């Protein structure tokens, strides 16, 4: 087994009296898609925001490349090469694909934008991800379909040589064909050696692309398993009841928020 790229150990997080995350262990491996599943309120979003550095941790360790790191905000995490693609895509409709992919990190020659290098790199990134669905890298994002926009948002994360990409419900609003495109892209990201975290409610998507599944139940990790070891139904039970046969939390009755 390879070393985890990013690892959380024994993380707790409370908001006032509400204890949201209980001793959560979570690991992201290079070249693998880790699916993070759980019912509404299980703590998925909180965990993602802790990883992204938006929320601090009450206690627990944050390890990157096997070494503990101090992260104090989103910039520290981004500096490690961790990118989060949020569900409400952070794209500007009035800018084109290149401009969006380089937003906030534009390349320059002195004070002048270096459009030539930016366009070349954007095209190289899209090509290396085998993205063939966009007509032109200079078309405004407003003219793209949902799947294409998701593609651009993901490609933006890849462009910056990220090592870990967290995708929050990337297929939630997409049709069948577009979901196909995005899932293919997710798989290709992992094949490039990135650690990918896929947050999803859709079991078909999870079983299709994930290598590992981490199930959260009421803020606890109910199971962290290889996808071959579990069935569709077992995962659903883990999500809804926190246990499934020998798997999962053995004492769910005492699990409280």
């Amino acid at each position, binding site marked *: 087994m390879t070393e985890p790229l990013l690892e959380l150990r024994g993380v707790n997080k409370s908001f006032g009296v509400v204890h949201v995350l209980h001793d959560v262990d979570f690991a992201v491996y290079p070249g693998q898609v880790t699916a993070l599943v759980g019912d509404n309120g299980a703590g998925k979003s909180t965990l993602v925001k802790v990883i992204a550095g938006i929320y601090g941790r009450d206690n627990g360790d944050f390890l990157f490349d096997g070494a503990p790191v101090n992260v104090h905000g989103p910039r520290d995490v981004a500096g490690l090469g961790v990118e989060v693609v949020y569900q409400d895509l952070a794209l500007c409709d009035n800018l084109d694909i290149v*401009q969006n992919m380089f*937003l906030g*990190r534009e390349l320059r020659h002195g004070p002048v934008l270096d459009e030539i290098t930016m366009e070349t790199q954007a095209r190289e990134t899209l090509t290396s991800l085998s993205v063939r669905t966009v007509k*032109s890298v200079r078309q405004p994002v407003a003219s793209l379909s949902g799947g294409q926009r998701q593609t651009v948002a993901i490609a933006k994360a890849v462009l910056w040589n990220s090592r870990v990409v967290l995708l929050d419900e990337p297929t939630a609003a997409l049709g069948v064909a577009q979901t196909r495109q995005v899932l293919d892209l997710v798989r290709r990201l992992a094949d*490039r050696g990135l650690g990918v975290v896929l947050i999803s409610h859709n079991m078909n998507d999870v079983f299709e692309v994930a290598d590992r599944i981490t199930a959260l139940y009421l803020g606890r990790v109910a199971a962290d398993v290889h996808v071959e070891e579990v069935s569709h139904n077992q995962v659903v039970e883990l999500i809804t009841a926190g246990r499934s046969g020998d798997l999962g939390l053995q004492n769910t009755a005492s699990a409280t928020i």
Partner: protein
Amino acid sequence: MTVDSDSMPTLADGEFQADTQQSGSLGDAVSAYLNRLRGGDMGSLPAILGLVVLFVVFSSLHDNFLTTYNMANLVIQSASICVLAMGLIFVLLLGEIDLSAGVAGGASATITALMLLDYDWTWWMATLAGIAVGAVIGLAIGLLVSLLGIPSFVVTLAFFLALQAVPLKLIGSGGSLRFNNEVLRGLSIKNVPVTAGWIAAVVIVLGFAALSLLRYRSQVAKGLVHQPLSLVIIKIVAMAVVILGITALLSQNRAPNPEIFTIEGIPWVAPVVIVLLLWWTFVLTRTRFGRHLYAVGGNAEAARRAGINVTGMKVAAFVICSSMAAISGLLAASYTGKVSPGSGGGNELLYAVGAAVIGGTSLFGGRGRAINGVIGGLVIATIPNGLGLLNQASYINFLVTGGVLLLAASVDAISRRRRTSSGV
């Protein structure tokens, strides 16, 4: 497990061809433009149509409208509106509004005039003082809008009312300050020597042609998206015709009595407007600041997540707007030769908003270019110019101004709706 990205199966160039094909033929470019029009992205087209309509109407109603003398007048009259509109574009890009820009210009011009008259400052120090007043006003507005979160409509309405007190207090009710500094007044009443005007015009045309062709060449060399060569050449030729045509027109002797006087050459205000236009076009299209401005106007949340300082961008936009308003106020004072308590408090602001919007800037943010202010400014300035020739009662002026503003906003709203539905 790690796969080197170099060993990834990458696509041959041919497989991404749909991308570079955009450079296709002139026909493709024309049909792409028509598609954009149909989709509601009209750019400056309403302004150009408006200009044609106004020219046809006024020239048929009054013989003197199309004389070179009046055309030069039109250039001088439009200068302050163009500059004010260019400044407003920065706040409009963010989806904000600055109702106080007109009176900020009046207040700034008052300070400049006082410095010239009472303190004997040189013209450029007095000008800088006026622009500094504008910048401070913009800073105050920007901080109130971005830090306290008061809607810009309310903040600038308050400034619109309060700033009118400045010239009234400093000048006194019913009075006015002379604005007869040789240089500043000369902007409106003196002309660039004909030879120098021609040289400048040719330099601008050649510069534009060289930049366009160099850009085209490097885009082709690197395999980037580019326009067809024929379109690039058509744009250069059109630009040359407009600039050289206007230069030729203004280089004629346009004095009412050509035997006695000689009035010829480009009025000095035109180079002022052109330099500002080139500078702000550069800032908006070629710098990181400009890119971030569009990003904040398009999706402030996305801009914030991309690490852009949204608060800072808002403050900067208001500072630029009010500083440009100060320059506009100086040009207006230069034209009338005086500053009075009412300067900037009349139709100026609504004219400028109308100019920006008719020129193609959206009131909803994220869309607009510096050239919009100049083209729109020419359209709007034609209205009082033509109505003035016709000796119409001033109530007509108000009616027409209101109507134009409403029309411009309607065009903007309709084109925005079409854009949303067609996704252009």
